[in-house]
C-alpha cells in the first residue's frame, strides 16, 4: 500500500524527477569524460541515453498503461490520416461483426442460453413411450402419480401454454398463459421479484384458490410496474384471480422460444379455461389427454439413466392399476430422460437448423471481412515501412511495435463493432419479421430481438478476436522490415514484395472461395423457396381474409355464442365486396388439429395410423376457400344438433376406406372413446394442404360447426377486391356486435401461406443478403490487391509501355494475374460448396444439393463481379503515362 502511495507520489512529481535524472546523467557523462579524456568513448560506453531514460522512467510510471494510451492516440491519428482506408476497413468489419452479432443474438436466446434458475443442469425433460412413438406430454393423473411416488427427482412439475384473455379497465387483450403445477416456482427455485409464488395448499382442491403470478413483462407493460398490483385481482377469461407475485425479469417460463405473460395453477383449470374439457384434470389416463409437459429436477446423486429405469418401474405399476378405458396399450415401459437445462425445446424444431446454418454462414462472412482488413493492413504496412524502420532504428523494441500495430487493428475492429451494432439491430429486426404462423390457442414461438449485455459482450469479444486475428500477420511482417532498403525508401525491393504479395494473394483466393460457398448456399435456398411457393395448396389463398375470436374467453355461453356467430356471418356476407364468408376452427397451413377417424366397421390393426386432419366448419367453407366439392353436398343451415350427424371427407379418406366406390352415405367414426361419434358422409372434397406445404396428401374430415359448438372460431372472408381493404369493414361488423372481444390472427391467407414458409424465407432472404455481402467484400479485397499491385509495378509497366507495349497488352497482363486468383478461388469454393451443401440437403425442397443451376449461377455472378474488380485496376495500368511512371 505504501509502495503504491510512493509510486503515485513519484508519478505526480514525474516532471521534476525527469529533469533531475537528466541533470544527473549529464553530470555522470562529464565526470566520465574528465576521467577518460575522451567524450566519444564516454558516450559510447554509456549506451543509448534514451533507453536509460526509458528504463529509469518506468520506476515512477506505469509504462504499460501509458504506452497503451500513447498507442491509442497514435492509432487514432493514423486512422484519421487515412480516411479511405479507415472507412473501407470499418465498413467491412461492421458488416462482418454486425451480421454475426445479429445471428448470435437469436442463437444465444433460443439455442444456447440455459434457464435462469439454480443449477439448470440438473433439470430434465421427461417423455414417455406410448402406443405410437415418443410422447412428450402426459395426462394430469399420471403426472400426479409420478410427482408423488418417484424417488429420483427432487421435484417434478408440469405445464402447458394456453392463450387467455385479460380484460382490465374495459380493454380486453389476448395474452399467453402458462398453466403450471403448484410446485412450479418452488421446484425451479425461481424467487418472484415481488410477492410470492404458489403455496402448497393452493395446489390441492380445484377451484378454491384463484391466484396468479404475472410475468415481469406484463407487469411493466400492462400495470406500469406498480407494486400495488400484488394483492389485487385481475380478470382472466372473465374470472377474478388475485395476483400474488411477479416473476423475476429474466425468467420467461420453461418453453424455449415462448414468453408467457401469466402463470396460473393447473388446479384452477376449470375457472381459467371454462370451455376446456373437465376430463383434462381428472379424466381417463389416456394419451388423448396428454397435454402437459413434464420437467424434473434430478436429485444430486441420481443419473439420467437411473431416473429412466426408476420411472419405467413406476410407470408400469401405474399402468397396471389404471388400464386404458379403451383397452389400448398404455404408457410403454420406457421413459426418456433428456437434458432440460433449456426447458422444452419443441417450438424450436423448425428454426434450429436454419439458425445453425446462418451462424455458420456469418462465421464465413467474418473471415472474409477479416481477410479484407488484413489485406488493407498489409498494403498499408508496405507504405508505412519507412516509418516503422525509423522507429526500429531509433531503438523501438519489436514487441512494442507489434503491440502498437495490434492496438491499431483492435481500435479498428472496435469501431467496426460499434458500427456493426447498428446493422445488428436492422438484421434482427428483419429476422423477427419472419414470424412463424401461430393461429391456435397453444404455445407459439416468439422471436425476441432485444439486444442485451450478452450480445454486447459477444460483439466486444468478437471485435477483439478479429482485431488480433487480422492484425497479427500484418503486424508481424511489418515489424520485420529490412532496415537499410526501407530507410532508403526502396519499399518495393523485389524479394520482399513478392513474399508479402503472396500472403495477400492467398487471402484473396480464400475470400473468393468462401464467398462462392455462401453464394451457392444462398442460391440453393432461393431455388428451394421458389419450389415451395409454387406448390399447389389445393385451395386458393388469394383474396381471403381471416380473423379469429374466442367468445368463450369473454364469458359467452353456448347459446349466446351461437347467436353471435350466426349474426356475424349474416352481417359480413351482406357487406359489399364480400364474395363468400364462413367459419372454421383451423386456419389452413397453421398448426392444424388431428383426430382419430375410421370407417365404421374398420378395426385398426395394432400400430395402424388412423389419425387424420380435423376441422369444424360452417356452411360455405369450401366455396370460400375455393376447394372443389367432388361429390355430394356442402353443409347447410339445416345440419344442426337436431339433424343426423354428418361429415365431409377428402379424396384421400374416400380412396382409403372405399376404393372404387362412392363414399356418400357411408359412415365414419370420428374421435376416440369415450368421445367417438358415428357420422354419415355427405360430401367428398378435393385434397388440399392442411398443415404444411410439404406434407403428403393425408386424410381429413370436416364436421359442421352447427352440430358441435366451439367458442373459438376463425372467420374466413373471400373478397372480390384486395382483401386488406376489407379489413376495417369486417372488423367493424365484429365490433358492432361486441366491441370488447379481442381479435387475433388477423391476416390474409397469402400471409398465412408465406409465414408457414418462414424458416425457408428466413434462410433464403438472409443467405441472399449474406451472399451479396460476401461477394462485395471479396470484390473489394480483389480490387484492393490488384490496385496495389498495379501501383507497385508502375515503373515496370511504364518501361513496358515505353518499349512499345500496347495498352491492351498491359491490361491483359494485369487481368491474367487477377483472373488466376479468381479462378483458383472459384475452383476451391465450388469444391468446398459441394461438401458444405450436402449438410443442408434435408432443408432443401425439390433441389439437389449439387444443383447445377445454383452452382453455375453462383460461379457466373462471382466471375462477373470479380472481373469488374479486376478490370478497373487493369484499365488504370494500361493508361499509365510512361514518362511520369519512369521518372518517379
Amino acid at each position: 500500500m505504501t509502495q503504491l502511495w510512493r509510486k503515485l507520489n513519484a508519478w505526480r512529481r514525474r516532471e521534476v524527477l525527469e529533469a533531475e535524472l537528466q541533470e544527473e546523467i549529464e553530470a555522470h557523462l562529464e565526470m566520465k569524460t574528465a576521467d577518460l579524456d575522451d567524450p566519444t568513448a564516454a558516450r559510447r560506453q554509456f549506451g543509448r541515453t534514451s533507453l536509460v531514460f526509458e528504463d529509469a522512467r518506468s520506476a515512477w510510471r506505469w509504462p504499460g498503461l501509458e504506452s497503451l494510451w500513447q498507442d491509442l492516440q497514435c492509432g487514432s491519428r493514423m486512422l484519421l490520416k487515412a480516411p479511405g482506408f479507415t472507412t473501407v476497413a470499418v465498413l467491412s468489419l461492421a458488416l462482418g461483426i454486425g451480421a454475426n452479432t445479429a445471428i448470435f443474438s437469436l442463437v444465444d436466446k433460443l439455442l444456447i442460453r440455459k434457464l435462469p434458475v439454480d443449477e439448470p443442469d440438473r433439470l430434465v425433460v421427461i417423455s414417455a413411450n406410448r402406443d405410437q412413438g415418443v410422447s412428450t406430454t402426459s395426462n394430469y393423473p399420471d403426472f400426479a402419480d409420478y410427482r408423488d411416488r418417484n424417488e429420483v427427482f427432487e421435484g417434478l412439475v408440469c405445464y402447458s401454454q394456453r392463450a387467455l384473455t385479460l380484460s382490465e379497465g374495459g380493454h380486453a387483450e389476448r395474452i399467453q398463459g402458462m398453466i403450471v403445477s403448484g410446485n412450479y416456482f418452488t421446484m425451479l427455485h425461481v424467487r418472484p421479484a415481488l410477492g410470492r409464488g404458489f403455496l402448497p395448499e393452493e395446489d390441492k382442491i380445484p377451484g378454491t384458490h384463484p391466484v396468479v403470478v404475472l410475468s415481469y413483462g406484463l407487469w411493466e407493460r400492462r400495470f406500469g410496474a406498480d407494486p400495488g398490483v400484488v394483492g389485487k385481482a385481475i380478470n382472466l377469461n372473465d374470472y377474478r384471480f388475485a395476483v400474488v407475485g411477479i416473476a423475476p425479469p429474466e425468467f420467461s417460463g420453461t418453453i424455449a422460444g415462448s414468453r408467457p405473460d401469466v402463470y396460473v395453477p393447473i388446479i384452477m383449470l376449470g375457472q381459467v379455461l371454462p370451455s376446456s374439457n373437465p376430463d383434462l384434470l381428472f379424466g381417463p389416463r389416456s394419451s388423448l389427454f396428454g397435454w402437459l409437459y413434464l420437467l424434473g429436477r434430478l436429485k444430486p446423486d441420481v443419473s439420467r439413466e437411473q431416473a429412466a429405469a426408476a420411472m419405467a418401474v413406476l410407470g408400469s405399476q401405474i399402468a397396471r392399476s389404471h388400464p386404458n378405458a379403451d383397452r389400448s396399450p398404455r404408457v410403454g415401459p420406457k421413459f426418456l430422460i433428456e437434458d432440460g437445462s433449456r426447458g422444452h425445446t419443441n417450438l424450436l424444431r423448425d428454426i434450429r437448423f436454419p439458425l445453425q446454418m446462418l451462424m455458420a454462414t456469418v462465421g464465413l462472412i467474418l473471415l472474409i471481412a477479416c481477410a479484407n482488413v488484413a489485406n488493407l493492413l498489409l498494403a498499408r504496412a508496405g507504405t508505412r515501412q519507412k516509418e516503422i524502420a525509423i522507429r526500429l532504428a531509433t531503438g523501438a523494441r519489436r514487441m512494442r511495435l507489434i503491440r502498437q500495430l495490434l492496438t491499431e487493428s483492435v481500435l479498428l475492429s472496435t469501431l467496426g463493432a460499434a458500427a456493426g451494432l447498428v446493422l445488428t439491430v436492422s438484421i434482427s429486426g428483419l429476422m423477427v419479421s419472419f414470424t412463424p404462423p401461430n393461429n391456435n390457442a397453444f404455445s407459439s414461438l416468439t422471436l425476441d430481438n432485444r439486444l442485451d449485455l450478452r450480445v454486447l459482450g459477444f460483439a466486444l469479444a468478437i471485435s477483439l478476436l478479429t482485431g488480433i486475428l487480422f492484425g497479427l500477420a500484418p503486424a508481424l511482417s511489418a515489424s520485420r522490415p529490412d532496415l537499410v532498403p526501407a530507410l532508403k525508401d526502396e519499399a518495393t525491393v523485389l524479394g520482399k514484395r513478392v513474399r508479402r504479395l503472396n500472403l495477400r494473394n492467398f487471402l484473396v483466393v480464400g475470400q473468393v472461395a468462401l464467398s462462392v460457398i455462401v453464394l451457392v448456399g444462398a442460391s440453393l435456398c432461393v431455388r428451394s423457396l421458389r419450389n415451395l411457393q409454387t406448390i399447389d395448396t389445393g385451395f386458393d389463398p388469394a383474396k381471403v381474409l381471416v380473423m379469429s375470436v374466442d367468445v368463450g374467453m369473454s364469458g359467452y355461453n353456448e347459446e349466446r355464442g351461437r347467436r353471435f356467430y350466426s349474426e356475424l356471418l349474416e352481417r359480413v356476407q351482406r357487406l359489399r365486396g364480400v364474395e363468400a364468408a364462413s367459419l372454421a376452427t383451423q386456419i389452413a397451413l397453421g398448426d392444424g388439429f388431428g383426430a382419430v377417424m375410421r370407417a365404421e366397421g374398420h378395426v385398426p390393426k395394432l400400430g395402424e395410423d388412423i389419425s387424420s386432419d380435423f376441422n369444424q366448419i360452417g356452411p360455405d367453407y369450401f366455396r370460400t376457400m375455393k376447394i372443389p366439392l367432388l361429390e355430394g353436398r356442402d353443409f347447410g343451415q339445416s345440419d344442426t344438433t337436431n339433424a343426423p350427424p354428418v361429415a365431409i371427407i377428402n379424396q384421400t379418406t374416400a380412396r382409403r376406406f372405399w376404393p372404387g366406390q362412392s363414399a356418400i352415405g357411408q359412415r365414419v367414426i370420428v374421435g376416440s372413446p369415450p368421445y367417438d361419434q358415428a357420422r354419415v358422409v355427405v360430401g367428398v372434397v378435393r385434397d388440399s394442404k392442411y398443415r404444411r406445404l410439404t406434407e403428403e396428401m393425408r386424410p381429413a374430415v370436416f364436421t359442421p360447426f352447427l352440430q358441435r359448438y366451439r367458442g373459438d372460431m376463425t372467420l374466413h372472408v373471400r373478397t372480390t377486391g384486395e382483401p386488406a381493404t376489407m379489413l376495417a369493414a369486417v372488423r367493424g361488423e365484429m365490433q358492432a356486435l361486441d366491441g370488447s372481444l379481442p381479435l387475433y390472427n388477423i391476416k390474409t391467407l397469402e400471409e398465412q401461406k408465406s409465414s408457414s414458409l418462414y424458416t425457408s424465407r428466413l434462410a433464403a432472404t438472409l443467405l441472399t443478403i449474406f451472399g451479396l455481402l460476401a461477394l462485395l467484400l471479396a470484390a473489394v479485397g480483389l480490387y484492393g490487391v490488384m490496385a496495389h499491385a498495379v501501383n507497385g509495378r508502375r515503373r515496370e509497366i511504364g518501361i513496358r509501355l515505353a518499349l512499345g507495349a500496347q495498352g491492351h497488352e498491359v491490361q491483359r497482363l494485369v487481368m491474367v494475374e487477377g483472373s488466376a486468383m479468381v479462378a483458383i478461388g472459384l475452383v476451391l469454393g465450388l469444391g468446398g460448396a459441394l461438401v458444405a451443401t450436402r449438410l443442408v440437403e434435408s432443408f432443401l425442397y425439390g433441389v439437389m444439393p449439387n444443383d447445377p443451376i445454383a452452382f453455375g449461377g453462383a460461379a457466373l455472378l462471382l466471375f462477373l463481379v470479380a472481373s469488374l474488380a479486376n478490370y478497373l485496376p487493369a484499365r488504370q495500368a494500361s493508361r499509365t503515362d510512361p514518362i511520369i511512371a519512369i521518372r518517379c
Partner: protein
Amino acid sequence: MKVEIPSGAVYILVLQTLARLGPMHGYGIAQFIQQTTEDVFQVEEGTLYPALQRMLVKGWVKAEWRTTENNRRARYYTLTAAGRKQLAGAVREFRRATTAVERVIEPA
C-alpha cells in the same frame, strides 16, 4: 574478464557500496563497484540509473544534490533505514544461496 551482473544483484552491490562509502553519486558508485570487484563486475549506466530510480521510489535510498570535490553539482545517494534492512536481508539470502551453490560445486 567482465561478467554481466545477475539481475537483482545490482541492488545488493549498490546498497553495499553506499553502506561502505556513505553518501555517493552514481558515477562514484559505478567506479567503486568496478574497482572493488577488480573489473569483474562492470555496472552499466543503463542498469545503474534505472536501479537507483527504483530504489528511490521504494525508499531504500534518498538523494540530495551536493557539489563534488571538483566543484561539480551531483546527486548523492544515502542509505535509509529501510535500505539497511533490505540490504541485511538480501545479503543473508545471497549468502545462503552461494553457500548452497558452493556445496554442490565442491562436495567435500
